[in-house]
């Protein structure tokens, strides 16, 4: 089971955080800080895995963004890399060649996509098509309930 997932930039700015374990806010911040520093300090040629506390950290860099997941001891590290990759593919399909700015300005969408891929830290859907379809239908639902003239104001803008 994935314990949490963090997205952060090369400058160490957090871009997304998804926690599947209940930690107090303080602990979350501490974990984030520690991991961001540790991972940013690692050289690009190093392997993507870290042993950290009682879990394993799997991370991968895509352009300027680091995707970092914590998994349990008996989880498959290589598969976690595939999950990260799948998520990136989904973002890419949704935004159309995704970049860091897309995720900054549409962070809620990034969360929605992740929530269609994973639940409770486990994969719920292995078909990209199905995930994107679900997201598209929900976006449509959101648009439908917002009258066109008011959309600019009523939506998140």
């Amino acid at each position, binding site marked *: 089971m994935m314990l949490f997932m963090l997205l952060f930039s090369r400058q160490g700015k957090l871009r997304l955080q998804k926690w599947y374990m209940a930690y107090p806010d303080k602990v979350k911040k501490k974990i984030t800080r520690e991991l961001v520093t540790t991972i940013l300090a690692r050289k690009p040629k190093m*392997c993507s895995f870290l042993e950290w506390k009682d879990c394993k950290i799997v991370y991968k860099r895509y352009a300027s963004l680091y995707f970092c997941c914590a998994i349990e001891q008996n989880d498959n590290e290589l598969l976690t890399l595939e999950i990260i990759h799948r998520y990136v593919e989904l973002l890419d399909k949704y935004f159309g060649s995704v970049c860091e700015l897309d995720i900054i300005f549409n962070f809620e969408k990034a*969360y929605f996509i992740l929530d269609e891929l994973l639940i409770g830290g486990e994969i*719920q859907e292995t078909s990209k098509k199905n995930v994107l379809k679900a997201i598209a239908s929900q976006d449509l*639902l959101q648009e439908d*309930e917002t009258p066109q003239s008011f959309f600019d104001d009523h939506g998140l803008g």
Partner: protein
Amino acid sequence: MYPYYEQDWSVLPPENNRRFNPAFNMATIRQAFTEAVERVRMPTPTRLRDLIRQIRAARTAAEERAVVNKECAYIRSTFREEDSVWRCRNIAKLLYIHMLGYPAHFGQLECLKLTASTRFTDKRIGYLGAMLLLDERQDVHLLITNCLKNDLNSSTQFVVGLALCTLGAIASPEMARDLASEVERLMKSPNTYIRKKATLCAFRVIRRVPELMEIFLPATRSLLSEKNHGILITGVTLITEMCENSSDTLMHFKKDSGNREIVPNLVRILKNLILGGYSPEHDVSGVSDPFLQVKILRLLRILGHNDPDASEAMNDILAQVATNTETSKNVGNTILYETVLSIMDIRSEGGLRVLAVNILGRFLLNSDKNIRYVALNTLLRTVHADTSAVQRHRTTILECLKDPDVSIRRRAMELSFALINAQNIRTMTKELLLFLEKADAEFKAQCSSGMILAAERYSPTTRWHLDTQLSVLIAAGNYVRDDVVSSTIQLVSSSPVPEQTYITNRFWESLQVANHCEDKQPLLQVAVWAIGEYGDLFMYGANEDEFERPTESDLIAVYHKFLTSAQVSTTSKQYALVSLAKLSTRLQQCVEEIQALITSFGSHLNVDLQQRGVEFTQLFGHYKHLRPPLLEKMPAMQISRISSQNGESGGGSFDDNSPDVIENGVEGGGGGGGGVGGGHSLIESNMNTLGDNTNILLDLLGSTDLSAGGAGDLVAATDLSNAVHKKNSRNANDVAAPVSNNQDLLDLLDLDLSTPTSTTTGAPAGGGGVGGGGIGIGILALAGDNNQSSAANMNNMLGGLDLGGFGSGLDGSASIPTNGNDLASMLGGLGGVPAASAALTTPAAAGNLIDGGHAGSLLGDLNPTAASNNIVVPPQGPRLTALDRDGLLVQLVSVRGNDCMRIYMTTTNSSANTLEQYLLKAAVQRSFQLQMLTPSGSVLPPGGVITQEMRVVATSNATLRMRLRIQYVLDGQQQVEQTEVSGFPEQQPSAAEE
């Protein structure tokens, strides 16, 4: 702040109600119109994207903070005004602010309000906020549980989906209990979108509350016969969790999971995936749904573990997966990795296992670091099952020790230790030493202890072993754990004489290297110990290896350097000082220099060093004649396995964590009158002080020496040896004990020096008429030397410090007392019973020794101090006699501890027979928990004592009764006694249970 439209004008107060404004003229109309336009034009709060832009435009952290604070203040005000139109937007902004690290807890309740809204946008943002902002606080959780319950019943699948997703992310145990039945209902929904989400929710619910598993069992039946991959993968995940959680459920699934058995069913799904042909929807670079494949392989592993039939059923498919999977990409390797794990974990065929190890061998050569890491990791897990297969990849593994990546190096190190055997120890050690030299600080401690352990187990020769030990000490420097120091000293002490000479010289050479004394203090400690102990061999013994010997003044100069250096730790100086004192009897010329150096410590700022200085100075002055016998060579120590406390090694390369046990050999009698081995008693008491696991090993070695007196003159020498403190190196507290231990010595010496007659052992009340003899108080070891360092070192020993010969010997007849059986046995030792050994634990038992007035003042003085810091004392409290038959007396003393009741069992043997293989078994009622610690021994000679501590934790208010079964072998006959004891003091249920 109002939005630009007001829904109901009429409810506004008249002054705001422009529709019915009494001052209805052109001016007011114009004003109202302008206001309305104004409101329409700038009515809304900042948009989310605008806020993000603003924040990103901030050039300094202060600027950013200002923007955020302003926005937060604004958002708070809208929350206060119960604005519902813009709540959604404001929460979204707050979530962004939260991600930047600013506090956002004030948005928690607003999130809940959003989730209760009817608009989907509101719900979507509301649940997102709930997942990000809520912690497991009870009050908020109750509210969200209600929201979730409503939405789980919604007719819109996406609303249900949102609720399930939220539940999956933040389910607390209470929520899990409250909503489990809803989730179970949704698991049976015909809608696959809802069904897969509900299945994972069930997984999460079980995670939080395993007892709820029962509810979901029926619903899992049909999951595996679905076609939809979403349902399949979530179903497999749920079943895996259930099987891992309870063996009953595992059996349930093996026997019956709907229409088909589970293993063939999974095999079928897997086979369809591999052979089913290309399916674009689930294809990942040529592999069909690797996510599902991996999950199935993992479940197969659990099902096949220790189950030959199930393993048989999956052998073929595992072989197929292992051979048919494309390995050019990460995906393929992902599946192979999982397959290998499964093959290794089930009862697979031999050929399959070879295949698996070969896959790992290929992984090791892969250019991708991740694959190499995984290979090392997996080899470590399989090495114990199939060492020879892994041995083939040894060179590759050793190569990984040089990898720049710390994750890989760590794995490689652990694996290397697992691969060491008697054949490859030399080459492996060479490689590991190279690694150790360059390793990061975090590795050094673990690596050095691991190497010492391996060397101990497989070393081909003593010399090689000694050399390795030295190399490790040099390479690991100050990172060496204390266990390495003590094990090296033991090793040297038990080596043959030429080796001792050799290694002492090697130590001496290593000390010549610059910086060694500061950076490698453990080496320094061992080196000075060896030089002090074997100084005579080193300087004047046989020189087989033809090394160059230093001059005595060189030697002293080096000691002078250490002892005055500020970089050398107090512990090292303690070693050096004792070593120097020993050297004074082994060197031939430089005794004055040594004396001067030691005397200078008489005014040292450190109390321990000062004490040593003062005490040793006495040996150069008035009691000069005592120096040689006192500073005799230590007896060879028996080697005991060092244990390692390595919290960080997950690989299980070390076996035990038991406290070290060192037994001291009995020092043979020194004198001409025929050496008589003393009775030697080993007191071993494990004590837990204040919850820390301080293991204190206390050796009270009472040995009696019959030394060079006349025929009638008896020298009763009580060797009060080492109260050895051995603590787990983790423990830092217990500062007082070592200090007062040293106090013991001081007391002893004071006592001896000032009032020799009264201390003469064996001088009974009427101590007159004593002939010339000697009293040797052989203090074999002074324990607890380390005031500063938390890890007390048992090896800091003062070999054979004998204070004797005060001309107050005893008449032979008068000296043999007729009292206390313990003492009798000890003096029986004097009479030539070398085997007499008595184990003492309690001061009460020790008190027996004193009772006879024999050595009264000496032991009397010693015992209270010793007791106060070393021995677990249960003197108060009722003493229950469990058994008193044929001279065998078993008594129990109970003491109430913080969290448990400690019961000390003392068995004494006053019969004339020796009881062997003594074993005490105890049973208590079910409402108590009993823990028995290791007994002090298993052999009861006449007069012998065995002690054992038991701990009882009460889980209810019952009265403790204990059934004891006592077994021993008498004259080759097994004897069993059974008895029941009650009448223990009342024990409250422990706090932990309440």
